[in-house]
């Protein structure tokens, strides 16, 4: 089955594609910068160990080079994890470091003065693999904006698909400096169920210990705060879409078209009322016709129009009378409104003439 056919099957009736998007190549810069740092640090260490004036410091000590490289990597990993609150960064760097040691031990390179060359090349190779993984991950995202909904699809092995309708969503947009330069940005559709919302948590705790050698008193106090912020995974948001402003405006327009405004709501309520009245009238007429058809009418007695009206009134029950009254009142109101509009128009014309 071709991709287009499959896509056609996935769409609803009368559904039209407005835009089909994927994230900008630079939109995953946070992930790409992890690989970039690995390359930069590998090259810098390679230069330090092989060409700089400090190369004598490292000569003949394979473990020292490896540890220096790994410790800096882990230190940066810890700092990045703390800032971004993602411990995967630390574990990623840790796995890179551990695999480097494992590879060196397995190949028995530790005593062969290989580390000065191995580290830059290994860093470069791992970074290239990292860049490729990020690129594959980026390409797995596909966002389709149709006239009825937003479809967010992602994943190569495990596919996720999310469909968001335009009614009852709030659109949140964010654009970093890189996004502002290259004109891409992230749009998060926040639904009433809370999709698109994350939370920032801050926790504080303090403890103290009192007492001498024997008697000790321990006290711990703590507290936390939580703030809800628009945040989502790239699978559940329009991540790094280009051109940002144009797409945001398009979504805003589609949301506006699908959300009923106060005027629309009034109009719908009024139309409902009218339909109800018409139904009631139809029922009344049915009853009338039934009652009249039950009574036998002789040819000699031709009923007067006045008699007919009386008979109809008799046939109408008190409840139906109320409905008719309501209808009359409504008609009266309508005519009053029309008259008021006419008077207003006349007044406006008069004031216009006076001004001229």
């Amino acid at each position, binding site marked *: 089955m071709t991709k287009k056919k499959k896509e056609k099957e996935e769409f609803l009736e009368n559904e039209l594609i407005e835009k089909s998007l994927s994230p900008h190549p630079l939109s995953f810069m946070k992930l790409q910068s992890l690989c970039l740092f690995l390359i930069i640090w590998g*090259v810098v260490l390679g*230069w330090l160990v092989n*060409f700089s004036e400090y190369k004598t410091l490292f000569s003949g000590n394979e473990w020292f080079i490896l540890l220096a490289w790994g410790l800096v990597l882990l230190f940066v990993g810890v700092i990045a994890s703390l800032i971004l609150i993602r411990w995967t960064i630390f574990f990623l760097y840790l796995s890179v470091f551990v695999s480097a040691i494992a590879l060196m031990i397995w190949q028995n390179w530790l005593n062969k003065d290989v580390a000065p060359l191995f580290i830059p090349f290994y860093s470069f190779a791992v970074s290239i693999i990292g860049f490729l993984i990020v690129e594959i991950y980026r390409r797995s995202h596909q966002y389709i904006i149709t006239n009825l909904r937003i479809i967010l699809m992602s994943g190569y092995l495990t596919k996720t698909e999310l469909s968001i309708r335009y009614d009852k969503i709030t659109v949140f947009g964010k654009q970093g*400096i890189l996004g*502002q*330069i290259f*004109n891409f940005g992230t749009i998060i559709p926040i639904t009433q169920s809370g999709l698109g919302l994350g939370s920032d948590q801050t926790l504080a705790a303090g403890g103290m210990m009192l007492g001498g050698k024997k008697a000790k008193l321990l006290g711990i106090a703590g507290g936390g705060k939580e703030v809800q912020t628009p945040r989502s995974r790239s699978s559940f948001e329009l991540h790094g879409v280009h051109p940002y402003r144009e797409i945001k405006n398009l979504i805003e327009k589609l949301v506006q078209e699908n959300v009923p405004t106060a005027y629309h709501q009034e109009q719908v309520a009024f139309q409902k009322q009218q339909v109800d009245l018409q139904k009631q009238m139809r029922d009344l007429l049915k009853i009338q016709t039934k009652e009249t058809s039950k009574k036998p009418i002789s040819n000699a007695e031709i009923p007067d129009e006045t008699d007919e009206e009386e008979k109809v009134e008799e046939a109408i029950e008190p409840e139906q009378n109320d409905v008719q009254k309501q209808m009359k009142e409504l008609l009266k109101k309508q005519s009053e409104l029309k008259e008021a509009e006419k008077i207003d128009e006349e007044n406006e014309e008069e004031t216009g003439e006076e001004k001229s």
Partner: protein
Amino acid sequence: MEGYSIDIVIFAPLAPILGVLLFWFIQLLFIQSEKFLLEKIRHKHEPLCRFTNFLGILFQTICHALGYTVTKSGISDFFISVDYGRVSPKKERTGIFEWIANAFLFIGPFFIPAFLLLISLIFLKVEGLELVIPLNITGTEYTFGGQITIFGSSLYNFSEKFFGFLSNIDLLHPGHFGFLLLLIFLGMGIRPSYIGEKKHEKIDMLYDLKNIWSLISFKPLYIIILFVIAYLFFHLSILINQFLYVELFSIFGWLSIISITALIIADAIVLLIKTTDEIPGKSRFLPYITIPSSYVLTRVFFFYFPSDFTKIVSLSIMILSTILVTFLLLKYKTKKFNTKTGMKPLRGKDDEEKKGKRRISRKRID
């Protein structure tokens, strides 16, 4: 001490000020040329223009914030985007403090980013950051001529060492490479006005000068105060027999030289982008591939055949090969160097015309 007293008292302090002003005007001229080039490539390289705008705004905003910090006004709000920067003080201060903060905003971007590069030059062990007093001016150091000679000599000494470093820059050295990147960024962002999506009137040098002039003319008293301070500082330097006054202005001169160099490099890059835009197809990327590949190949060559001029030769080959590749691409891929009509057909036409004229003339004679 020799020299006329009027020279020492009135004219001598003006010498370094005029020197710095001259260099600053040269800086403005290069900024103008960069703006012109950026405006030319804007329609094709919108992100690059936005990036340079961002750099410019970043420098300005940092300088403005520094102004508020120096005047102890404090910073309550700091915001930077690609086309807008805003810094608000905690305390609104008037008078000289306000003027100093504004001076930081208008004049700071020309000198403060370059100051960071000057500091990094110290870390890269570049010499030339000292005052040079030529022997032939002994006794007349505090005259106009003496002051301008010391200023010029210091600048010459710095330029010699700085350009020596640049021509021997090792692009495989992380520190040197980082310095070059910073230099390019400085060159791209050292401009006080914005190049926007719509054509703005305020992208020329006159607009910048008008801004600075309005700042000066708005508070002329402060300019007088600044001159008085400068004169006092100069005479204090004479009193303690130190060259502090000319040394201070020499630093401004060094900063101007760094800025001008940065602008020249940035101009060259923008010019390369503008030129390669004219080349059709993917071959336009060839000059950009030539830059690193030619340098790395030359360095590899010199690794096996060592020479005393490895860095300078590698750099020269890199620049020359890039120019050559660009030139060849322009010659064979575009009609840039072609005349509107070929020379041969023109020659042929000329010969035919001449023959025709002869025939006509012969007929007439007949």
